[in-house]
């Protein structure tokens, strides 16, 4: 093992994570959650056509590999004259992906709130929409934190795929150094360790959010 190479490469790879992996994951997750909420509401709609649209979306996202989705957007769309830079391509692909998976989490969380809460909302005079926003979603949010954290942690690791569409992030940095030094095992293990540290730190965040939302349960 080349300790010196390990130490020298540490900071460049971490920096790749801090400027690539983390912002990519955070932005995609934020946009993805908005998409997911929309899709979850489609799935719960009283209109059959809207329900079907939501179901098709989830089915396509979950039924195709994320890598293929990335390639379709970055390498495929230029054929139609739509050229998107690496970063926006990655954000679009990851957001759509999170949207599909998190939609199911949010839908289940909404369904887990007892029917009586809807009725209590109606009885104090609220519409379905207002009941959803003020009564149901805050309670669903509490339930969905652990599974959504799962989705987020998966996303952090999945962003390594963006290295294949030329986004400079943690894994691409590690690969560049590995290619240059031919120390593949060392650099890839180092990348793994750094991913693991990132994910561990992020799951502390999950605990804090859970505690904050737990106060009334």
């Amino acid at each position: 093992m080349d300790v010196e190479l390990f130490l020298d490469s540490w900071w460049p790879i971490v920096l790749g994570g801090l400027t690539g992996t983390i912002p990519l994951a955070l932005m995609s997750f934020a946009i993805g959650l908005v998409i997911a909420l929309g899709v979850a509401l489609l799935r719960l709609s009283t209109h059959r056509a809207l329900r079907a649209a939501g179901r098709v979306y989830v089915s396509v996202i979950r039924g195709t590999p994320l890598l293929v989705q990335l390639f379709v957007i970055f390498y495929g769309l230029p054929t139609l004259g739509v050229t998107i830079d690496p970063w926006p391509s990655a954000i679009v692909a990851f957001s759509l992906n999170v949207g599909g998976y998190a939609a199911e989490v949010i839908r289940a969380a909404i369904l887990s709130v007892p029917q009586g809460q809807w009725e209590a909302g109606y009885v104090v005079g609220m519409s379905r929409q207002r009941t959803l926003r003020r009564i149901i979603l805050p309670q669903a949010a509490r339930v969905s934190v652990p599974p959504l954290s799962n989705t987020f942690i998966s996303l952090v690791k999945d962003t390594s795929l963006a290295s294949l569409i030329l986004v400079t992030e943690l894994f691409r940095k590690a690969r560049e150094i590995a290619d240059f030094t031919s120390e593949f095992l060392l650099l890839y293990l180092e990348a793994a360790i750094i991913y693991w540290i990132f994910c561990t730190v992020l799951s502390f965040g999950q605990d804090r959010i859970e505690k904050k939302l737990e106060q009334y349960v």
Partner: protein
Amino acid sequence: MSDALLTARGIHKSFGDNHVLRGIDLEVRRGQVVALIGPSGSGKTTMLRSLNGLETPDAGTLAFDGGPSVTFEGAPRSGRARRAAEARRTALRDRSAMVFQHHNLFPHKTVLQNVTEGPVQVQRVPRAQAEERGRALLDRVGLAEKADAYPRQLSGGQQQRVGIVRALALEPDLLLFDEPTSSLDPELVGDVLSVMKGLADEGWTMVVVTHELQFARSVADEVLFLDGGVVAERGAPAQLFSAPREERTRQFLHRILHPLD
């Protein structure tokens, strides 16, 4: 009758093959307390929930005085018919407030927020005014010091009293109670019943589904005995409890009053 607050005519409701309500008539006059009693499955809760649109009857008419008269016919099929039915239910709902069997308080809101949610969000009462009124109502039921607690921090009886205050805060024309004490420990029942008795004495118009025959007898102005989805007998409590005309009323009362026979 000119002083009828709410009139229900020929209310029918089925759940699948189960014909739960088979043409029920009900009239509630202002200031009157009507008790619905009957064996489980008799349709009394479904009837109560039809009065504020939590259930949509398959047939029948509901009318508040000076308010909407709503006629139900058949289950809505198209999206538009469903939305129209929803609008009718909302119109009905604005006149009444319901206290649930399991209180259904909002767990993520404090006691005071539970009470002010409807007035502030729906009725556009200024928050300060709604809170002042909310605190006064909580004080009335002995829960002034619990205003900032969360529902889970209260006992079952306290939760149910908050449920009553939440309904009162809406200042409805009609209060609906769905077995408000049947999920409570026996020693907590009295607190809730005495609050309800106080409301009746103050002249609130109430429809109460209950198993507390003692309460029905002393507070109600009229008692309806439901059995198999019809009103089997109705009358003043003194008459219905002491000298029931119908055999099935007699049997029901006997089962409740002498469960070990």
